[in-house]
């Protein structure tokens, strides 16, 4: 193992190389561009034994990845924001076709207004596509997750595409130390991709054929069950990685000091890494607080949410996006997982960091204060969905 200073995008490219991706089809988009540039370099230098396919759009990038996967090759692509949105139709196809393609999405805001900064709307809008979603908080986790994503996606009980999410600039362009595992370790963890259902001229099969209503629903039911089975496969993959490298991401959820926590904040991405420092500070002041960081969005961490529900007085759910209907996606999912559980502490939704606004330690401290107040006195004028730091002339100092 060698420790290197890598940006999130470099960690992504090296993750794909270590996972021995055999076909890479990608189209550049800020802030993902340096991923595909780096992979192109690695292929050109002969360090990565892959076929690099230049395509004219993200739609084609995923289409080529599906075709490659159909032949039994390990396929990789990367995109961001509008690129992921353009990929939407084919993401559905990749899932339905049960092709374990792995893609990395650099989370970036959707326009307009035009932006290149961190925001979770792109990925969370793919909630229902049938794509497994991992979420990273640092560059190490990005690299490890690319490798783990193949392990999970290619499992015979799963066979679904997987997406690894990393925040624009806060990870993609940030350099930090990354332990680069030896190729032998990765090979030991991740055997070559093998599938019996593949394009083979000597053994012709039909792919993507028309199907009648009685059979269609059976296919979707199988897909749903596979997504459910992915939970155990993810936990096992995390454990095996830990045995080899000493690194675990908590299986289905990364919990930080939640065991005895009375007030817990749940959210995704880099901001939750910052929040862990605040937990340490507040713990020193005697406050029982914890952080639950989203590690897997699809399948949703149902048991883990219910574990939190069993201990917390109140849960604050942070969404770096909005559903433009009601609440943020994590808030709505969290609430629905507790409804039939029997125990449901008060929850409040904090919409934060949208379009790359920086979420700082002082914000988390104020959010913890607000959550405690909500638990004692009920919701304030903002109600249960609070757009944090929105300028309306009366915005409190701690929200700015």
């Amino acid at each position: 193992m060698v420790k290197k200073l890598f940006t999130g995008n470099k960690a992504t490219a090296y993750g794909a190389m270590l996972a021995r991706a055999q076909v890479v089809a990608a189209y550049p988009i800020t802030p993902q561009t340096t991923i595909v540039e780096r992979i192109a370099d690695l292929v050109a230098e002969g360090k990565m034994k892959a076929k690099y396919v230049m395509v004219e759009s993200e739609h084609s990038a995923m289409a080529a990845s599906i075709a490659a996967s159909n032949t039994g090759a390990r396929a990789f692509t990367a995109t961001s924001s509008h690129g992921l949105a353009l990929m939407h139709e084919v993401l559905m196809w990749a899932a339905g076709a049960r092709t374990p393609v792995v893609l990395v999405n650099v989370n970036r805001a959707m326009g307009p207004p035009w932006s290149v900064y961190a925001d979770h709307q792109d990925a969370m809008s793919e909630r229902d596509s049938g794509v497994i979603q991992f979420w990273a908080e640092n560059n190490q986790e990005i690299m490890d997750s690319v490798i783990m994503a193949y392990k999970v996606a290619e499992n015979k009980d799963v066979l679904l595409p997987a997406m690894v999410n990393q925040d624009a600039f806060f990870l993609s362009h940030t350099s930090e130390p990354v332990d680069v595992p030896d190729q032998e370790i990765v090979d030991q963890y991740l055997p070559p991709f093998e599938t019996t259902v593949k394009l083979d001229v000597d053994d012709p099969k039909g792919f993507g054929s028309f199907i009648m209503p009685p059979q269609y629903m059976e296919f979707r039911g199988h897909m749903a069950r596979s997504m459910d089975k992915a939970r155990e496969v993810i936990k096992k993959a995390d454990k095996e990685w830990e045995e080899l490298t000493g690194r675990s991401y908590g299986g289905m959820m990364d919990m930080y000091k939640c065991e005895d926590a009375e007030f817990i904040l749940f959210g995704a991405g880099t901001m939750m890494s910052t929040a862990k420092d605040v937990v340490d500070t507040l713990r020193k002041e005697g406050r029982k607080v914890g952080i639950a960081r989203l590690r897997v969005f699809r399948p949703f961490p149902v048991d883990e949410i219910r574990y939190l529900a069993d201990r917390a007085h109140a849960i604050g759910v942070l969404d770096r996006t909005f559903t433009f209907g009601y609440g943020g996606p994590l808030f709505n999912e969290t609430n629905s997982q507790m409804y039939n559980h029997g125990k449901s502490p008060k929850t409040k939704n904090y919409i934060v960091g949208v379009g790359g606004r920086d979420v700082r330690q002082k914000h988390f401290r104020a959010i913890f204060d607000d959550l405690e107040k909500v638990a004692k006195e009920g919701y304030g004028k903002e109600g249960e969905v609070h757009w944090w730091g929105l300028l309306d002339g009366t915005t409190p100092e701690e929200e700015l």
Partner: protein
Amino acid sequence: MIEIRFHGRGGQGAVVASKLLAEAAFNEGKDVQAFPYFGVERRGAPVTAFTKIDNKHIRDKSMIYEPDHVIVMEASLLQAVDVKAGYSEKGIILVNSESEPEIIREQLGVKKVAVVNATKIALDNKLGSKFQPIVNTGMVGAFSRASGIVGIEAVDAAIMALPRYPERNAKAAREAYDSVVVLGGD
């Protein structure tokens, strides 16, 4: 944690400078983070970049608001940007300028300042052009001396790993290290 903020203009190499400083501290066994904050990505526009250095794992992913040190890649930025924002005078402000250090100190209104003519050093070492000198390696070399946070050997090792003109850049860093003037030091 030590937090350093860089102010530059697009094309001068502030982003690479933040990485080089991080790489140097990393070479000395520290945990580091280096990241840019791009506005409009074009030549000449003000750019901010950050480096964080600590003995323990850095989890905070937010930007730097109260820098311990500030590095200004070009003196004209002193009029364009509030380089002192959040700076509490605990560390040092390093400015690339051909002016007398005393003038820069007065202009900034701080006790301690470091000044180096990194533009001349860059041009002497054929780094960039007259209109677009690449001053980043010089600035990191000067910062090594002025702040004492990283050793010049670690800076040198980071520069020698650069893909283009490592020797010329290392020489520029060393010249800046030798020629930087610190005013108001203890």
